[in-house]
């Protein structure tokens, strides 16, 4: 395989016909930086049907091309149609890299078309670096439960496929390029060949507390929490600060808080204005989840806890006592 024959970097824009999923925009902004280094074109790939004002948002991320696909089989998401779509498109256009937002559906089809194309697929990178010597993208991510960082590359095969969690990168549009080329493709997938059919969807109880993505203040609880009986004071603290509570993986594992509140590489990636972590040791797969927050503070009994290396302010002490003290100080104001 001649790697130089593969050019341009693709970002898949997942959408529901009304809005583009933010992860596509975040990826466009980040991959723009890579393309500036490599000279590749940044191509946003989507299935037709997104309103013009949303397309404008994509253009604003500095894309070079918009590849709009039409055809049968894309009305609802299906693994069969989307795996086929990217196989067909990649075979025709030979992109160097394909980035797919690590939503549940993104993670559903990206590894499959990568396998069909017989190429490498990475997931959940938190940093992307271009290595000019090898010509490969280095997908850097926490590994083994955050005990180490691993650099992953696709050294021989193309395209380099990567799924990236929503919230990993910032949506910081650099502005629309003067001439964004729009390409149209028609790829029909026979509806009768789609082997899965969506019968229904029941949204979770509209619990705003479970939506961390757009929260300004996050009070995050770690394994230091002695038990659920202590939750109310942290909920109160979060409420007084105008925010929400969240947790690390051990608390989800202990069944104390739901998965949707788990911050970190395998959970939700957030960038609040204020992050306060209580009883969190600070494995990198958690701290990667709030990197880039405004102000960050951590409370832990262990002065050696790695969390203190990831925050602006640290307090060595009993989390419950500090929480009580903060509540008292806030109420006294």
């Amino acid at each position, binding site marked *: 395989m001649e790697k130089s024959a593969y050019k341009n970097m693709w970002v898949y824009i997942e959408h529901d016909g009304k809005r583009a999923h933010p992860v596509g925009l975040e990826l466009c902004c980040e991959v723009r930086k890579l393309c500036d280094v490599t000279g590749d074109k940044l191509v946003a790939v989507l299935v037709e049907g997104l309103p013009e004002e949303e397309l404008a948002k994509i253009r604003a991320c500095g894309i070079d091309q918009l590849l709009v696909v039409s055809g049968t089989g894309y009305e609802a998401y299906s*693994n069969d149609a989307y795996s086929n779509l990217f196989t067909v498109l990649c075979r025709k256009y030979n992109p160097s890299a394909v980035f797919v937002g690590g939503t*549940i559906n993104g*993670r*559903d*089809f990206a*590894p*499959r078309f*990568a*396998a069909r194309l017989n*190429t*490498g*697929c990475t*997931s959940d990178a938190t940093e992307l670096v271009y290595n000019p010597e090898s010509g490969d993208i*280095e997908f850097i991510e926490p590994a*083994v*439960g*955050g*005990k*180490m*960082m*691993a*650099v*992953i590359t*696709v050294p021989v095969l193309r395209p380099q496929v990567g799924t990236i969690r929503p919230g990993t990168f910032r949506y910081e549009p650099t502005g629309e390029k003067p001439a964004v080329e729009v390409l149209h493709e028609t790829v029909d997938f026979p509806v009768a060949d789609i082997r*899965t*059919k*969506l019968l*229904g*969807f*029941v*949204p*979770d109880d509209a619990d705003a507390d479970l939506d961390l993505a757009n929260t300004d203040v996050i009070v995050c609880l770690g394994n230091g929490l002695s038990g659920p009986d202590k939750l109310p004071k942290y909920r109160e603290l979060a409420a007084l*600060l*105008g925010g929400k509570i969240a947790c690390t993986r*051990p608390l989800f594992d202990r069944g104390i808080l739901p998965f949707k509140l788990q911050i970190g*590489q*395998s959970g939700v990636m957030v960038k609040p204005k*204020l992050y306060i972590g209580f009883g969190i040791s600070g494995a*990198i797969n958690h701290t990667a989840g709030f990197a880039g927050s405004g*102000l960050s*503070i*951590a409370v832990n009994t262990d002065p050696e806890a*790695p969390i*203190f*290396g*990831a925050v*602006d*302010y*640290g*307090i060595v*002490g009993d989390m419950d*006592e*500090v929480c*009580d*003290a*903060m509540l*008292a*100080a*806030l109420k006294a*104001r």
Partner: protein
Amino acid sequence: MLNILVCVKQVPDVDLVKMDPVTGSLIREGVPAILNPLDGNAMEAAVRVKEQYGATITAITMGPPAAEAVLRECLSVGADRAVLITDRAFKDADTLATSYVVAKAAEEFGPYDLIFCGKETLDGATGQMGAQLAERFGSALVTSASRILEIDEAADTLVTEREMETGIETVQARIPCLFTIEKTNYQPRIPNFKGKKAARFAEIVTRTASTIPGLDPSRIGAVGSGTIVPRTYPPERGESGVMIDEGSAERNGAKIVEILAETGLI
């Protein structure tokens, strides 16, 4: 009767893995190797299907010889057959190569109506194996499946729930189908003594690179992998933040509130 494949992996209990502060390498010594937790949920889901509809379950894993321990776990709760794929030639395989080898080795006892995987592993956590195995088997795929509602063997269809970001999807899928299982509704059962005893010395089918028919050596191990890990390094511990120490929890808490007020956050 349904023919079921359950794909499992033995993983280190990553919570107990420590890093050598000097060499930066991982200390795996003394860390228990366990059945990947979500694979336990997948096995439980398969056993419940077996109990309700009748099935033959084959459990399969790829790993070092010691990985047979996780297969015995599967046997003890209801697997009928266990296949261990082990060979140094498979070392350093990524999901691309692993899915190829597992599917090839499983062919011998196939074709399968249903294939179960855990949603992701504790160590690699790529969550790619399910989708890539589905590709190898040419089956339908339902990832993040949280509950199997019904199986219609006559129509070769089934209905399952999928745990999505914002709610629960109900999905109908054609058989053959591969699921990646969420833990929500499938807490693994505790095996009974009868099952443990039977599993203890049960035969494990062992396959190596030379005993899997038709294996293409260019598609296995490091050579057959799409991705490599050229290097790893310890996570950098950033510069410590400013440590607040005002002498007591009360004063420290008050100090944080003061800082928040100064920065305009409250």
